């Protein structure tokens, strides 16, 4: 290879960049909402889903396909942000539904990627926990952008052999006692965990809702997380990462999902999980209908199917989460004695209220002022903290 050519090449790249920069420019339009259907019509033969891994298990997908004739194609996503990205790409007609968590749902609603649904077409909806019939993460201005699915808390997971005495507070992952042996999720929404902790330990900051933070409050949470960074072994991106960290002894305590707990328990690891005294953040998932869904009738059949007590119970016991349908408790007992209690399906409202569910942070706070930090600010702060 001759040398002069390389100069040439670099020159060509720069020139092309300059020429390109002087061209281009267009605008795009959002999808528009459609009128609500009043009945479920003839099914279209297929249904395309974006889902959390395992939310479309053969156990309940096969009977659905047999019953409705809708063939299910599921694309698994690894994070809320990936779900949003998938629903935005390709104009939104590629997928009919998404099992969005609360921190994705508002973004999808605002971006116009999803459309309102008629809850009258989902009879089981009336049996849902009252708090999950019209929760703020999927119901805006009285419009239901989807049907709630399952929910659960983010817990404090610890190794019972290495961590004594057992922790009772989130301070365990902000103090230096287990320096270099902690793990928390690699996810900007983790800021809410810090904010929740601060709302209890530093009342002077005036944090009333961990998802509605002013600039000063976000900075305070950022400071706490920066201090925590020196204690962290690794930020986990996949649930399996944290499981491996616990198994290899690299980590003895961390913020986790009940999923990790049940996996480690099944592997006979000495672990326990708690909801610390400050309370916990959590997730509540919603099946949302794409604004440009090509198979809306199959979609309505699907939410009806997964809302039924039996399927609710199957999914809850498979993944260790809590069903939204209050009638699921009996079905869970049939599958596994005592599981209704274990997965909180019969828990009082106070348990539900102790969990601060993931929501997309937006600029408008409940206080009527638009001075809260939105999600892009959270992401920036998170990068500043962990980068």
């Amino acid at each position, binding site marked *: 290879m001759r*040398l002069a050519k390389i100069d040439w090449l*670099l020159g*060509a790249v720069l020139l*092309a*960049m300059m020429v390109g920069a002087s061209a281009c*420019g267009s*605008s795009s339009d959002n999808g528009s909402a459609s009128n609500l259907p009043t009945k479920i019509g003839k099914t279209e033969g297929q249904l395309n889903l974006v889902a959390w891994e395992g939310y479309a298990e053969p156990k309940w997908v096969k009977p659905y396909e047999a019953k409705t004739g809708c063939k299910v194609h599921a694309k698994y996503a690894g994070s809320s942000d990936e779900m949003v990205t998938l629903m935005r790409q390709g104009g939104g007609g590629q997928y009919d539904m998404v099992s969005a968590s609360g921190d994705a749902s508002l973004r999808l609603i605002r971006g116009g990627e999803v459309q309102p649904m008629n809850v009258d077409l989902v009879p089981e909806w009336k049996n849902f926990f009252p708090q999950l019939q019209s929760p703020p993460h999927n119901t805006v201005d009285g419009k239901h952008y989807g049907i709630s699915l399952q929910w659960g808390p983010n817990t404090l997971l610890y190794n019972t052999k290495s961590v004594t005495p057992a922790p009772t507070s989130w301070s365990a992952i902000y103090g230096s006692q287990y320096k270099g042996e902690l793990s928390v999720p690699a996810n900007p929404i983790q800021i809410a965990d810090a904010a929740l902790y601060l709302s209890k330990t530093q009342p002077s900051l005036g944090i009333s809702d961990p998802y509605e933070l002013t600039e000063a409050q976000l900075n305070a949470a950022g400071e706490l997380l920066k201090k925590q*960074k020196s204690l962290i072994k690794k930020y986990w991106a996949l649930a399996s990462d944290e499981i491996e960290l616990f198994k290899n002894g*690299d980590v003895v305590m961390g913020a986790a999902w009940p999923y990790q707990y049940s996996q480690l328990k099944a592997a006979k690891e000495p672990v326990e999980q708690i909801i610390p005294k400050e309370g916990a953040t959590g997730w509540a998932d919603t099946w949302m209908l794409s604004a440009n869904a090509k198979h809306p009738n199959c979609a309505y059949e699907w939410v009806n199917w997964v809302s039924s007590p039996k399927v609710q119970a199957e999914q809850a016991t498979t993944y260790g989460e809590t069903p939204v349908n209050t009638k699921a408790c009996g079905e869970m007992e049939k599958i596994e004695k005592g599981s209704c209690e274990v997965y909180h399906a019969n828990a009082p409202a106070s348990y539900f209220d102790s969990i601060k569910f993931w929501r997309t942070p937006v600029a408008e706070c409940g206080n009527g002022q638009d001075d809260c930090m939105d999600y892009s600010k959270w992401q920036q702060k998170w*990068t500043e903290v962990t980068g």
Partner: protein
Amino acid sequence: MNATGLAAPASGSTRDRVSAALFRRPWLRGGLLLSGPLAWFVLIYLAALVVLFISSLWSVDSFTGDVVHSWTLKNFETLVEVDTYRTIALRTIGIAAAVTLTDAVLALPFAFFAVRIAPRRLQGALFVAVLIPLWSSYLVRVYIWRLILAKDGVLNWALEQLGLGALNIGYSNWAMWIVFSYIWLPFMILPIWAAIERVPDSMIEASADLGARGWRTFRSVLFPLILPGIAAGSIFTFSLTLGDYITPTLVGGAGSDFIGNVVYQNVGVASNVPFAAAFATVPLVVMGVYLLIARRLGAFEAL
């Protein structure tokens, strides 16, 4: 001899005429031959870079996540103003440089031994040994290192057997340095190997005849001749490390993000493609500068 006679070859089939035209115009021949690869290069490769650069001048509506197609330098301002991005860029470049240096130090004696000292059969075996890791998946090799460096891993077990204290380097910048150095080592060895092979024996002998001992021969004869090979290898190790994001994700600890990780987060997670594009131009510029330096060292003759 008449007009018809002269025209006869030209008035043959179209094929004859085309081949005659091509024969008379070598530049056209070369142009046609190159048009395929050239079109690929311009359309796919250069155009992609252009699009990358253009989109780095756009922004994202934080409400809807839509890309706003109006010019702004905001992304580049953020890159300069926020300390974190500077730290990440410097960490990326620093580790890439450290890996390159490490690989050069490891590869040089190895290649020298393999080419100049090892008997023929051993040489073949060494060559295969260098290449074998490349047959397994990159991911597998990184995951294996994760197990080796873990707290209850092989490394700490071995250290404790030897009576030395356990090292706590799993999930850290040290781990990244080790893993990167291991993974890219073959890409350093091969160009150096080729460069050493190309040095004629007569030069070494001449050096000895003139009274130079081993070290002197290496310093004044061999090293200058294989320097282009080292530079060529360094292009691979440096650029491969610079652009990686998987190893930092898998073996890095808290605060081990590379430029690639930020790009990945902004594309796949935050849907802020313009900012990702802006940050992605940083390694491009770094590599541009690096190639210019490598060129001066004669790396392109050694490729």
